């Protein structure tokens, strides 16, 4: 008797298990179909950019549009450098983004160190002042900052593109959070060994906080590489334009019909950031999630 019930239950269990497995496979399959469909839809503009960037002037206007270029025009990628000074734009963007990244990181590290590791008069007030800067958006300061630049005679200069971005309160908060996790005993021990505060920061704290420094550098670089409104306003000469602005004027130029070359240019403009993103995407996404949730 006992044996029989056990047998039955074993077989139904096996059946149930089977059914469960089939259901899992089916639902997984459905999941993949849905997610791949959405992913393709999201990727469509990128795919279309690449496809178009390889089309010649006649194929671009062909109807119905072709998904695989009949005669891939790799020359579009050479043409763009000839038609506009993209080399110069690229250089400008690189100079500005690198300078801002280094400068911003330095100022953030110093301020974050003071907030995380030192006791001083007016600390709370200072912290509130830093916090309040995040509420003043660039739109609000646009006109006056432009007027300041004009009176300094900084229009069309690297200083104008770099200096306003050398401080960042969000960066200070992030770094401060990270600096606070390093145990105080370490600092005490270092002090006993005759290590000054600044040396402690450079030689011990910073190496311990490498990941957060890397992600802050990344944010600064990407944000600056992609920035648009300020460089648009502050540059008039073609030779001072950054990539984003150069692209804008290239596309809105006379005729505006060379979509193959335009798409090649658009791809080149966003490629550096995309490459960096793929190299470090894990750190990037993680720090994005934690910045968004913990610190604002």
């Amino acid at each position: 008797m006992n044996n029989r019930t056990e047998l039955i239950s074993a077989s139904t269990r096996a059946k149930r298990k089977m059914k469960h497995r089939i259901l899992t496979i089916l639902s997984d399959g459905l999941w993949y179909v849905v997610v791949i469909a959405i992913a393709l839809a999201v990727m469509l503009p990128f795919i279309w950019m690449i496809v178009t960037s390889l089309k010649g002037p006649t194929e671009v206007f062909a109807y119905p549009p072709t998904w695989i270029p009949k005669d891939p025009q790799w020359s579009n990628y050479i043409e763009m450098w000839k038609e506009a000074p993209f080399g110069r734009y690229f250089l400008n963007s690189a100079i500005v983004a690198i300078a801002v990244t280094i400068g911003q990181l330095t100022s953030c590290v110093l301020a974050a160190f003071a907030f995380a590791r030192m006791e001083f008069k007016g600390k709370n007030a200072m912290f509130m002042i830093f916090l309040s800067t995040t509420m003043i958006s660039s739109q609000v300061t646009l006109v006056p900052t432009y007027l300041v630049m004009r009176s300094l005679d900084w229009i069309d200069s690297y200083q104008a593109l770099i200096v306003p971005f050398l401080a960042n309160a969000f960066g200070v908060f992030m770094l401060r959070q990270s600096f606070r996790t390093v145990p105080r005993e370490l600092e005490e021990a270092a002090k006993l060994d005759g290590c000054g505060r600044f040396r402690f920061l450079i030689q011990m704290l910073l190496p311990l906080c490498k990941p957060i420094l890397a992600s802050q550098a990344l944010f600064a670089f990407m944000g600056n590489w992609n920035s648009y409104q300020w460089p648009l306003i502050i540059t008039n000469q073609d030779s001072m334009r950054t990539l984003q602005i150069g692209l804008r004027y290239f596309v809105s130029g006379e005729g505006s019909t060379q979509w193959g070359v335009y798409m090649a240019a658009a791809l080149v403009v966003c490629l550096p950031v995309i490459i960096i993103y793929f190299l470090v995407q894990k750190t990037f996404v993680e720090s994005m999630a934690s910045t968004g949730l913990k610190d604002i």
Partner: protein
Amino acid sequence: MNISKEIETSPKPVQQRTSGAKKRKNKETFEAYLYLLPSLLIFAVFTFFPAIFSIVVSTFRWNMPSPASFVGLENYIYLFTDAIESPIFWKSILNTFYFSLGVPINLIISLLIALLLNRKIRGVGIFRTTFFLPTITSTAAVSVVWLWLFHPAQYGLFNSILISLGLPIQAWLRDPALAMPCLIMMGVWSGMGYNIIIFLAGLQSIPGTYYEAAKIDGANGIGLFKHITWPLLGPTLFYVLTVGMINSLKAFTEIDVMTQGGPLNATNTMAYYLYQNAFQFFQMGKASAIAVLLFILMLLLTWIQFRFVDRSVHYE
């Protein structure tokens, strides 16, 4: 907000009464301000001074290059009541809110995708990367791509899709009725990735035991979402909503590349109208007045967000 609280509650060092300790403390204060100095200088010159200067300039009539003259609140009155000017300004306010409709749409789509991605399955990382790609890509570059997708001729990709579906072709960005929906569509596409990442982090912070307990009590898929996911995700949702709203008030790049505020001011938002006034019409006073109004709007949103985040702490 919680940051400032932490500071207040952090244990104060034991009061030392000896003059040596006091001296040391003074020295530490001096040193601390040295560390803060670079940031403070930049903030003073490029954030606080311009913010205040903005209010001052907004009370001047200043049509560059002619000199400025004090006019009090005339710029504000002019913006809201002038027969020629005010319709455009009112329209820009309406457009600003119209454009921000993309934020809740974005929220819903991102949440659905995040729920879809919130499972342990092979390849989920690749999809996460894919959805995030539009967010990190330069807005100027993707705007150029969307300009091409929305091309009004039949060879524009969207129009060719319409034709293959047997529908009439559209002028898209050149149609005053369609231009804003087009910008919203692109905005949803490019902003989705950020929201998905935040939502995924929020979803993953909900302990699995909650779901298990509810399942034992007989809750099903929708019940789980309604009673566990939704309330616990509340603060995240609100955060994403307010940040999204503030960002949408600032939107500039896509408008400048794709429509320049046109056609017939159909996509002219406050942020864009500010830019036009300052850098195309050179009316610095009027532009500053718009900036001040925009600032008040953003401050209001930030305040709402902080209020809510404060309360949500108690909730958890």
